[in-house]
């Protein structure tokens, strides 16, 4: 009994300590951002690794999610004779929810895990330590550009995801199920509001990009420098950032779309 209490206490302390270290890490990462103004090339390289290389999975998933939305939406709407509203249903679900959230989950799996593994391995092979001894701050040279790249790539990927998804919905709804093309687009234009829907989706994905990249980089930097430690850190990145995305999505949706 006492034993398990002690273990709970130790676990709690350990968790808070990690949380504290995570925030210190964030601060020093943000403190390192200003040097990148002088060296945009560092960021561009990482945008390629983090963003461009995630494009394929984002486009394919966006297409399929949009097509499924087309099918499901049509089945539901046709019962009310409202299948002309399919464009609205597809675009709103994508812009408000599925675009940012699914993109963030895929991003955590594809780019987040890669970031953690990369930084963890750099740590375990003493590359970070070696940089420090060459008077190069790895926080600025390695971590900060990756953070910026993740932060900016996420909204772009989410927008691409939504755009491809709308295409997928159009393909299924108009192409296969015979919804009127004009109605699909005009209903969509009428009901989608730029600030309310598009921008809120972008804000969500910015927040998700921030959190996922932060978690991924911190896990890598904080990993135990062994192969087991790196593998555990990679798992933690995917689990923690997925949970964080889903939890934050609930909070953000509450704030944005429901005036309590």
């Amino acid at each position, binding site marked *: 009994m006492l034993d398990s209490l002690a273990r709970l206490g130790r676990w709690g302390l350990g968790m808070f300590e990690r949380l504290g270290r995570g925030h210190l890490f964030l601060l020093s990462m943000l403190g390192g951002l200003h040097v990148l103004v002088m060296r945009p090339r560092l960021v561009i390289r990482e945008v390629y690794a983090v963003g461009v290389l995630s494009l394929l999975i984002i486009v394919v998933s966006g297409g399929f999610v949009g097509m499924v939305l087309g099918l499901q939406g049509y089945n539901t709407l046709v019962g009310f004779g409202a299948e002309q509203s399919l464009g609205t249903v597809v675009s709103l679900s994508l812009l408000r929810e599925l675009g940012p959230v699914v993109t963030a989950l895929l991003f955590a799996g594809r780019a987040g895990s890669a970031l953690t593994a990369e930084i963890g391995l750099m740590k375990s*092979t003493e590359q970070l*330590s070696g940089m420090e001894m060459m008077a190069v701050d790895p926080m600025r040279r390695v971590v900060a550009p990756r953070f910026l790249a993740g932060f900016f790539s996420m909204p772009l990927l989410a927008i691409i995801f939504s755009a491809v998804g709308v295409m997928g919905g159009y393909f299924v709804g108009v192409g296969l199920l015979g919804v009127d093309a004009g109605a699909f687009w005009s209903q969509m234009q009428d009901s989608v509001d730029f600030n309310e829907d598009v921008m809120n989706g972008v804000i969500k994905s910015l927040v998700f990009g921030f959190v996922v990249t932060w978690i991924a980089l911190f896990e890598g930097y904080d990993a135990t420098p062994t192969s087991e430690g790196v593998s555990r850190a990679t798992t933690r990145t995917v689990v923690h950032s997925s949970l964080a995305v889903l939890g934050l999505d609930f909070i953000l949706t509450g704030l944005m779309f429901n005036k309590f």
Partner: protein
Amino acid sequence: MIEVRDLHFARGSRKIFDGLDLDIHAGRVTAIMGPSGTGKTTLLKLIGGQLRPQHGSIRVDGQDVHRLGRGDLYRLRRRMGMLFQSGALLTDLSVFDNVAFPLREHTRLPERMIRDLVLMKLEAVGLRGARDLMPAELSGGMARRVALARAIALDPMMIMYDEPFTGLDPITMGTIVTLIKRLNDAIRLTSIVVSHDVRETLSIADDVYLIADGKVVERGTPEALAKTASDWANQFLQGLPDGPVPFHYPAADYREDLMNGGRDAR
């Protein structure tokens, strides 16, 4: 050049340094030797300011390493080279770019000049022909030599070699030994060589420190050490298996441990 005073450092409850005093003079090769696990790598990391001692001070070129602000520490590190035990090359850059890395980070030299400098450094370690290889394509000894070229890229005032000789074939070993000596003499580098390859190290060292149990056990020139013949120095320098230096990591009594019969194995 480097003064270590009353250094105390512990990892958890394990004391690694317990009042260590050391002086390293400019322009000389100082060897630091001691059994595996005595904290030689730790000492270099303390000198480089990567670790913080619990007590005591380390002054490099007149500056207390652990009292410096971030900017000053980084400025000081630019003048220190360190050769890691593992090489610590950046695996996503080619040999050329690895050696060019500190130059590109710290100078605004035109690319032509960087190229010339890098090729000069690579020539010095005999790997000019390997410039396009990736670190994964190098052998351990080659990686060490590339790391050495990188460490001298900024023409530091001192360089710390962590186990520069382990795992090298006799020929490479010989070239590295002469290389360290030559660098030291040619550009008046201060060199610290951490090693337990006694013969090679003694052949180039001007001063030798033997450390054990967190303290300096013996110090002097190689000739003087050969004469003093304290038990400890003798055992270490001649590689005798038994003597005052225990071969084992601190542990419970062996017999008891065996008799314990897995009582503490959960």
